[in-house]
């Protein structure tokens, strides 16, 4: 009934429109590239300095000088351009990237996002996430609706250190699709056989 990782990625891929420049975060967002609809041409940005990211290489074409923001080896396309990190984030900060699809630990009903740090536990750093949510035109989050203990991750307000304030536009969870609107999170779509009552028990954020 709820969506699995691939179904969430497939649903997120429907957000993509022809001609868009898109940044995909690490984890489930990376899977979105497997589901880009036919007839939709999308250019992927990798914030370490590349526009026009191609698929993973073969053993023969692997190149240590060609990696994505997750440090994975990748390939280039006929549209590819490389640039330095300042130019890459100029593009991001300047609002030229149409959409970012990112993972999250928590999202608040006002669109606050926490996805980079758990005090005293996970202190790896924010990488480019703060720049992305502050600069990109539209921020879509893919996340599980609850944590491993079954607790809500869509909250009144985030408990973890923020990545950005009022930055999330749309949330795709294993239960459905939600937009951040004036009074809370608006239910846009539900997974098959999921009811709004199901959501009530596992969602702290106000649903409208």
């Amino acid at each position, binding site marked *: 009934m709820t969506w699995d990782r691939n179904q969430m990625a497939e649903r997120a891929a429907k957000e993509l429109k022809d001609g868009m420049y898109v940044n995909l975060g690490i984890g489930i967002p990376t899977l979105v590239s497997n589901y880009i609809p036919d007839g939709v041409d999308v250019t992927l940005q990798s*914030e370490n300095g590349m526009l026009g990211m191609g698929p993973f290489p073969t053993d023969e074409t692997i190149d240590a000088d060609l990696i994505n923001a997750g440090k*994975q080896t990748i390939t280039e396309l006929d549209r590819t351009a490389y640039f330095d990190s300042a130019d890459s*984030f100029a593009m991001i900060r300047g609002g030229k990237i149409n959409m970012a699809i990112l993972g999250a630990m928590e999202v608040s009903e006002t669109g606050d996002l926490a996805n980079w740090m758990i005090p005293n536990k996970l202190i790896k*750093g*924010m990488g480019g996430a703060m720049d992305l949510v502050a600069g990109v035109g539209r921020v879509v989050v893919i996340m599980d609706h609850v944590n491993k203990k079954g607790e809500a991750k869509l909250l009144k307000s985030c408990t973890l250190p923020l990545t950005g304030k009022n930055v999330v536009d749309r949330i795709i969870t294993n239960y459905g699709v939600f937009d951040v609107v004036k009074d809370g999170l608006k239910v846009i779509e539900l997974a098959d056989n999921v009811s709004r009552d199901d959501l009530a028990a596992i969602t702290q954020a106000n649903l409208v």
Partner: protein
Amino acid sequence: MKKIYSNADDALAETLFDGMTIAVGGFGLCGIPENLITAISRTGVKNLIVASNNAGVDDFGLGELLATKQIAKMISSYVGENAEFMRQYLSGELEIEFNPQGTLAERMRAGGAGIAGFYTKTGVGTVIAEGKEHKDFNGQTHILETGLVADLALVKAWKADGFGNLIYRKTARNFNPLVATCGKICIAEVEEIVADGALIPDAIHTPSIYVHRLIKGKHEKRIEQRTVIN
């Protein structure tokens, strides 16, 4: 005027001192100045403040300088690949100043470009904004970030000519051109030194003015996440 040195040790001569700030290029293990980092580990210089997007892995890249405890503080956006880093940080031996990746890149560019400070929306409403000046532009809140200038800059490029013009290859470019600009002295290591005039003037990424010393290195170019399609 001669910029070419025979090896990394010679190139580093008289550039190092305890407590100095060193900016280092690379993203993960991609495009890092391997030879210069290893040579620094041999010098024993200590209490270094290192500005670099990442901190290498345990036994390679900046991880080498963490292993020798030569680094007192890192200015980075992401250090998740390095267990020794975490250990030193949690035991209080090592300080970390997290900068958002784009802010770090822009701070290096600004430092090199004589821009003392700049306003960005990145980090507004987060811990990054704490203690920083806030200012509204067109109804949107921005925070003031400052230019970053290092005592020494270490970069890795693909090719150089004898004047010190550099070109980088694919995503190994990353922070390197910015790091080159923000150092009072910049040392570059390259895979190949080509004949003067052999680089295309329209395609040079780092003009010679930024590069003070130059070596040809041997590069392992280790891959961090080998990912292939089957």
